[in-house]
């Protein structure tokens, strides 16, 4: 009998920490591993009273029946998950794969751009393009050398890899948009650029390619509730149209996306998020645990932006 919602939740098999704020979870879900396509996402509820948070599928292994999620601890839920989600524990809810898969065929030369946490979800796309015979140029951006992850994994599926760091401590010094410029200078025949990262990064990528008329796809991650097209919370402006990122996307033409609108809407619950985080941190302190406390003046606390780490990256 088909069982998609096991009684004890969805088992976490492995976890890897990339930095003090980013971590990956490998979750057992054979059906989802079989169905998942690059570009899709899931919605996770870590416990019964939790909220539903959308996370892009960073990888999947059909043989092992696992999906990999990469999480950045920015708000109450993701910081709490950082403490509680360990191999052997389970996620209360996990639904997906959601969204329209990214088309990977028919391209000869593509640039796959990932900034910060966006590096994870761009990986299956790069691999997918490679499997379909495309020449893949990877452009990865991080703040510094210590935050770099998965570079080796990318080398296996990319024909060229351009690593960028804000401070030049690894690869070239500069943002991913600078990396895209290098790629464009080296190749006149790029069919498509796919960029995943914080909104401001995707916007910079779209502006970089616009003068060259290169088709640029971005993956949007607005605030969602159900992820099935029912609430409209994730609506985004694409040209003159209103689209729902959850069922019409999450991939859209970067040259048409209204990024200013997206960034404003991402701040919708900034106050509530901050209140929830403060309250949770206080509780942790009282329970003599060591919560991941925000540093003074760190904006990331108030922002429900999952890709905060590489702002501008």
């Amino acid at each position, binding site marked *: 009998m088909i069982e998609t919602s096991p009684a004890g939740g969805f088992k976490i098999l492995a976890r890897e920490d990339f930095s003090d704020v980013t971590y990956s979870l490998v979750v057992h879900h054979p059906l989802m591993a079989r169905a998942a396509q690059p570009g899709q996402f899931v919605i996770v509820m870590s416990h019964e009273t939790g909220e539903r948070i959308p996370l892009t599928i960073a990888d999947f292994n059909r043989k092992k029946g696992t999906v990999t999620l990469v999480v950045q601890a920015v708000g109450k839920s993701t910081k709490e998950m950082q403490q509680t989600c360990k191999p052997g524990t389970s996620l209360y809810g996990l*639904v997906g794969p959601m969204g329209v898969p990214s088309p990977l065929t028919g391209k000869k030369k593509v640039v796959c751009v990932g900034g910060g946490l966006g590096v994870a979800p761009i990986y299956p796309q790069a691999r997918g393009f490679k499997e379909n015979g495309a020449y893949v140029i990877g452009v990865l951006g991080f703040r510094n050398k210590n935050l770099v992850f998965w570079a080796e994994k990318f080398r296996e599926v990319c024909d060229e890899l351009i690593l960028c760091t804000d401070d030049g401590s690894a690869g070239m010094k500069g943002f991913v948009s600078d990396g895209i410029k290098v790629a464009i200078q080296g190749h006149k025949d790029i069919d498509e650029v796919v960029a995943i990262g914080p909104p401001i990064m995707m916007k910079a990528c779209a502006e970089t390619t616009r003068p060259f008329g290169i088709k640029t796809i971005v993956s949007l991650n607005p605030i969602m509730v159900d992820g099935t097209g029912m609430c409209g919370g994730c609506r985004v402006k694409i040209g003159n149209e209103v689209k729902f990122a959850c069922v019409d996307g999450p991939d859209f033409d970067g040259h048409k996306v209204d990024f200013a609108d997206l960034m404003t809407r991402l701040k919708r*619950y900034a106050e509530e998020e901050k209140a929830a985080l403060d309250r949770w941190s206080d509780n942790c302190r009282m329970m003599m645990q060591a919560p991941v406390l925000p540093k003074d003046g760190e904006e990331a606390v108030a922002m429900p932006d999952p890709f905060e780490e590489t702002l501008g990256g």
Partner: protein
Amino acid sequence: MAKAAKKKTIRSIPQQRTPVKELEPKVRVKNFEEVNCGYSLSEAMNEAERCLLCPEPGCIAGCPVNINIPKFIEAIAAKDLRGAYDVITASNLLASVCGRVCPQETQCEGVCVVGETLEPVAIGRLERFVGDNAIREKWSNIPYIESTGFKIGIVGSGPAGMACAADMAKAGCEVTVFEAFHQAGGVLKYGIPDFRLPNSVVDAEIENLRKLGVKFECNTLVGRLFTIEQMRNELGFDAVFIGTGAGYPSMLGIPGDSLNGVLSANELLTRCNLMRAKEFPNYDTPIPLGKRVAVIGAGNTAMDATRVSVRLGAEKVYCTYRRSRAECPARVEEVHHAEQEGVEFHWLTAPVEVLDDGKGNVRAMRCIRMELGEPDDSGRRRPVPVKGSEFEFECDQIVFAIGTNANPIIGQTSHLKLNKRGYIATDDNLATSMAGVYAGGDIVTGAATVIEAMGAGRKAARNMKAYLKIRDSSDDAVGKSAGTFFGIDLREQNFARIRAA
């Protein structure tokens, strides 16, 4: 059942409709407890006396699932509550739900003969009384079920899916219901607020389905996790029913409608009801709290949105509707309750633009007055803008409840034929373009009511049974058959053999 001692007449029955206890408006606006407290036994028996037990009752035909209404009311009058429950559950498994949310005034109560002279019999309240009593007494009607070995997959755990699941389980099929959310119940859980339909009631009804052997698989987005085609070809489902609802809220399509503070009623209600944001921060999901909330639309969803906003602590809640009160599609009781709770109605008013505060939030709404013109396609008089009547009013939150469009997921992921509006195309038997796949409820008709969805679920089940060649002996199938042959139902597959014997 005892026959009524003497024939009742319109003069001999209690003249006044038995009032039902309700929470005081000033108390209930501060909580999410149920407003309508329901009948006590004596109140229910008193109201049951008002039924004339018509020999040709209109109410049965007025009910989308054809409950034998006079028969269950007669049982209540005779204090035979178990009997009343048995009569209702023969047609409707969700008495507690339907008694609360059906638009009775346009269905059974709308055609009640008593209603021609006095107020109609309070059929909905009586049905709820019977259903609630059964939950309290932990009754359930689990018939002896002989397995047919058929596997049925149901997509969506809302009212259509539940009704179809119940009938197929009773017919001996192994039924699995798939739900995308983490909890079963569909719109009954995420949409209808606790003060109108407590989640505990929905859970009790779902538990009854589980007792019938129905399995619920939550966290399952059919179409994306596996497709309808895969259900039929790989996963071994002999038949599939799609009851995914309409989903996809219609947008306002006016300037400023993406500002923070503008949200769909679906989003407000889902956050509040299913995700329990009203208990934030004990539950993690936040909810937008508006001081001055404008709700656009006047259907039941709009009424729910206004009343949820009141309870979340809004200082002022407005409801604007482009037509007049007479065309308002909400249940009369909901509008009445909203008014009692201080919601201010602005009829013949349509939004033109949402104005921002310079920081991406709502500051005010610009509206225009409307007047009624010639009748439109729906037969209602078309609202026409009155020139020069635009005005602004301050608000910090706008909730739109102006209808929904077809959810695209099943269409995107299957080859099922859709109609031109994107809903699933079916024939009169609710069969889709794919053999063995049926669809019903809002995903076929567009937004409608809970009971209509249940009716569709049951109709699909009947046809599914015919498709699978399962003998259909349910009450209504027999009752509705074209004819009988010496008392033998002609629709029974084996009637020829019986006749030969």
